[in-house]
């Protein structure tokens, strides 16, 4: 399998706080990888480094075999055309109606006409279970779960080669979560998209991923096929997937 994305020894710290301490990860073309890890372990920072929103302090990042670590300006924009991203907090543009949020990449990034882009936006909204009646609403009029789905529609709108989902099912009811899981699976399987998702939801992780990687203390401490997750032989992974308070991972809780 060809490698689509590769991180080599990526390091990042904010002030004194080391967040990524040498992340190595390869993601194959057409593969769906889930990154798991505790809250604040740097999962979001990891995918933001690939997008260039966060500039790594050290290490290299490759997309389609080309190094993209230090790209900016036009060159960065061109690489980003391959990506669709769902932000953890949806990050919808609150000055634009829902449909323009979804169509944004088509209109601004690709210069598509507004009418055609609106039709595509409404079709993408339908894929995430939202009717055309929300198209003209403002994002602030939607519930949290609906905003998340609009964010998802925006991520898939331009049919990118690579999709990043930061907690796609958080805040959704179990049924809608499963609809989104199916959507992610079908996007990857049918369209051959490469997907990297972050999730705390192990049901979703098992369903959408070919492979799981666990981030702990700034490094990938375990990775393997999803079917092996229960027999990882790694006590950190075991503690995490079973959600136990006791174990090698010590949460920083002060009493």
């Amino acid at each position: 399998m060809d490698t689509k994305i590769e991180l080599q020894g990526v390091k990042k710290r904010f002030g004194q706080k080391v967040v990524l301490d040498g992340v190595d990860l390869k993601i194959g073309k057409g593969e769906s990888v889930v990154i798991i890890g505790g809250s604040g372990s740097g999962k979001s920072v990891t995918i933001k480094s690939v997008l260039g929103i966060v500039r790594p302090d050290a290490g290299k990042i490759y997309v389609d075999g080309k190094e993209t670590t230090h790209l900016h300006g036009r060159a960065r924009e061109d690489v980003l055309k391959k990506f669709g991203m769902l932000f953890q907090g949806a990050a919808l543009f609150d000055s634009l109606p829902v449909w323009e949020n979804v169509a944004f990449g088509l209109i601004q990034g690709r210069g598509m006409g507004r009418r055609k882009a609106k039709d595509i936006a409404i079709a993408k909204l339908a894929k995430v279970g939202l009717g055309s009646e929300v198209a003209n609403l403002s994002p602030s009029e939607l519930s949290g779960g609906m905003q998340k789905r609009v964010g998802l529609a925006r991520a898939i709108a331009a049919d990118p080669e690579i999709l990043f989902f930061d907690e796609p099912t958080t805040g959704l009811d179990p049924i809608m979560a499963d609809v989104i899981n199916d959507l992610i699976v079908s996007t990857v399987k049918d369209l051959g998209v490469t997907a990297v998702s972050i999730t705390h939801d192990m049901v979703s992780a098992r369903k959408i991923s070919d492979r799981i990687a666990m981030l702990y203390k700034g490094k990938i401490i375990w990775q393997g096929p999803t079917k092996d997750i229960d027999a990882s032989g790694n006590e950190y992974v075991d503690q995490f997937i079973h959600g136990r308070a006791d174990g090698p991972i010590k949460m920083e809780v002060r009493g």
Partner: protein
Amino acid sequence: MNIFASVGRLFLLFLAEVGRLTRFTFSSITSIVRPPIYWRLLVQQIMRIGWFSLPVVGLTAFFTGGALALQIFIGGNRYGAEAIVPQIVVLGITRELGPVIAGLMVAGRVAAAIAAEIGTMRVTEQIDALTTLSTNPVKYLVVPRLIAAVITMPILVGIADAIGVFGGYIVATKSLNFNGAVYLKNTADFVTSHDVMSGLVKAAVFGFIIALMGCYSGFNSKGGAQGVGTATTNAVVSSSILILAANYLLTSILFTS
């Protein structure tokens, strides 16, 4: 403890800030000339920055013109020179008070609004989202605001000049017993195109400062609601100070030859 160390540290922080602002200014200016230009956003910003500032600017200009007429009358009275009111009012308004008052009012209104909007977009990751949608945030957010402010401020100040002179006229004719026709004739005979143009040049510079500081503070806001609040305050304070400093500089360039 060591006072020199703390002063030194503050000075370094100040230099770093100046450096960041310079870089931001530079990248904003180079983005203006590079396509695309977002016309739809430009029109929207012209409405927001220019049109909706008209009431505030008009009212302040009116009262300033009125107060100015009164002061010159009272001051002139001491030397028996109270007839000079129309000439000094038009000079003061077009050269200094029109642009400065409009600049400060728009700074309070617009720089704050820009900083709050862009700051919120920063802390809710909307600016990162723009980037991932292959849209340059500086081009999309900063350029329309900069152009709109530089275009609309001179228009606002032109209107403020007229309203300010009118405020002086009303006070002079209604309570200081000036003859209306004579007042207007003296005003028109005295004012030169250089007086008006210098004020409009100042206005364009102030517009640039207002939009730039609003955007800069917004882009650099951190944290949540509190960070956005700080950014808003910074935008108003820094743009007001820069306007007054630039005004002095421009006065000394434009009126000493």
